[in-house]
């Protein structure tokens, strides 16, 4: 197991290097002179030259990459060309907002998805099962920005909302506030698709496991049906679900852009969009890099936990 973890850690090194190369190339892949683009069409040549100098764009590419990598490794993500603040600080302020959003949404997904999936599996081919699966299919097919817009509309239009629910609508300008209710709509928006995926996965996994020989063995021992389903079967059925949950969480970290925009949440997604709009390349590079590294790390954890849970996999 330790050997596996070490090997898996080593394997992420080339992946992370690849990520830095891609992120570094971002600036050079767009057609035209990045300094000119940052400065704007009409900017005087002296200003463009200044930007070029500041970003080190005059050095040969490999030197530029070396500097970039060195800076990244030491935690220096450069400086925003708009706010002149360090990119790391810009991201730091928004990072936890997005992580929190992703964590809450994942918790919602897991909670709803597991319950729905287990109920569906235990009652398979009944009306309950069919109903749950139809809702899940719906939840899965809905684009989440659309769901977000619908939720806002349902809550906002018609003024039927009682006083106590008003905070649902007060979107925030930065970070999370003091009222948990403000979190609910965006979390529902982000968590619904995940809940649907987890519900479907749990159901099919449970149904597969419940027909296995070892379940019959458990019954033949005189184990209560409740224990057979919620221990013998569920413990096996959850192994593939763990992977899905992890991947879902990883996807959420990078997938909050539209939801953050709709609900005016100042997270990483919004930061990226604003930076793109303002052609603030260092910030774009920084956010993409942070999200990618997070994604790789989450996948690594998923892999290790999957291996840990699934003792059936040959360790060689």
């Amino acid at each position: 197991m330790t050997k596996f973890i070490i090997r898996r850690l080593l394997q992420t090194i080339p992946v992370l290097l690849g990520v830095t190369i891609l992120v570094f190339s971002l600036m050079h892949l767009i057609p035209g002179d990045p300094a000119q683009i940052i400065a704007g069409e009409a900017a005087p040549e002296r200003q463009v030259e200044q930007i070029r100098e500041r970003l080190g764009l005059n050095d040969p590419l490999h030197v530029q990459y070396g500097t970039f990598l060195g800076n990244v490794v030491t935690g220096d993500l450069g400086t925003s060309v708009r706010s002149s603040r360090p990119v790391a600080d810009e991201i730091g302020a928004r990072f936890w907002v997005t992580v929190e959003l992703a964590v809450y949404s994942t918790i919602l997904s897991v909670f709803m998805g597991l319950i729905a999936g287990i109920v569906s599996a235990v009652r398979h081919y009944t009306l309950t099962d069919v109903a749950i699966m139809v809702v899940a299919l719906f939840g899965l097919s809905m684009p989440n920005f659309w769901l977000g817009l619908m939720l806002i509309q349902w809550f906002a239009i018609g003024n039927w909302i009682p006083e106590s629910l008003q905070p649902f609508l007060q979107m925030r300008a930065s970070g999370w506030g003091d009222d948990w209710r403000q979190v609910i709509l965006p979390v529902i928006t982000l968590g619904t698709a995940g809940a649907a995926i987890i519900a479907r996965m749990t159901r099919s996994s449970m149904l597969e496991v419940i027909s296995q020989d070892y379940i019959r063995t458990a019954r033949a021992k005189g184990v209560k049906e409740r224990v057979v389903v919620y221990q013998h079967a569920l413990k096996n059925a959850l192994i593939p679900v763990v992977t899905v949950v992890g991947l879902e969480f990883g996807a959420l970290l990078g997938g909050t852009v539209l939801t953050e925009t709709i609900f005016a949440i100042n997270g990483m997604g919004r930061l990226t969009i604003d930076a793109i709009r303002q052609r603030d390349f260092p910030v774009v590079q920084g956010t993409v890099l942070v999200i990618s590294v997070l994604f790789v790390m989450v996948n690594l954890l998923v892999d290790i936990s999957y291996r840990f849970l699934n003792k059936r996999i040959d360790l060689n």
Partner: protein
Amino acid sequence: MNSSENILEIRELRTSFFTDEGEVKAVDGVSFELPRGKTIGIVGESGSGKSITALSILNLLAKPGEIKGGEIRFKGENILTYSEKQMREIRGNDISMIFQEPMTSLNPVYTVGQQIMESIRIHQGLNKREAKLKAIEMLKLVGIPSPEKRVDQYPFELSGGMRQRVMIAIALSCNPDMLIADEPTTALDVTIQAQILDLIRELQNKLNMSVMMITHDLGVVAETCDYVAVMYAGQVVEFSDVRTLFKNPRHPYTVGLLNSLPRHDIEQEKLKPINGTVPSPHNMPKGCRFAPRCPFATELCRESLPELVADENNNQIRCWIYSDEWDGDPEVNVHDSEERTAKG
């Protein structure tokens, strides 16, 4: 035979599967009995209903399966009338079962010890520590080396033979009165097969168990069983003690099975497999189910189903030849293979 001497008596058991294509009568009027402390072999081709009979005894049938009628008397009580809770107390405690597939019959996410301890804790109410000691003792009993270490291992760390020993340890951990072994050695290689059979026999004597041994290997029957029930298409066609069955098989199907077995005691040019195949459950013959394949079949056989009839030694047969109504050659000899080839 007096019923109190029988640990198990099955009467006219009928079990069906209700599928989209209609009712599949997997077990259709099975009757036999098992005297206490003895071993009965259930033999028959694939699909004859052996496993379904066994699962019916423990009421462990999977979804579209359902027991339609008959009686299963265990220690004199008809357990078909038992509630689910009463059945749970019997399972793994009074009657245990081991299965054909040792590779998949153990839960991969629990240790061997946890799986043995589970039945001990359910049925004997021991605490964790006591149950673990008992689990180690059981592993020792079934001949697993260094049981103190094995007890904490997961199934994937064990070979097929070892896993089947663990299954036996689970099955015997609560001193059951009866063990049902559904083809316990089919998936194992030959030397391991012999070891497992020896183990079952040895523990049977030690613990004074009755055993129901399901197999399609007549060699296994000859070695381990006291009685044999031969099943064909969901019914018992012949039941007798093992010596009588091998010396003087009476049902044409039994004769066919024995002829398809390699024998060392007589000279034999080649094996004679039974012609034809098992009838489809959707298209059962009206009369004797073996009639389409039987070299002796007559009009009577094709028209009506013979009853299972017992003689004074309680040897039972389901075949018209042994009845007064028999309308074929009165001198018929089921052992005459010339006649078989001529007619069949």
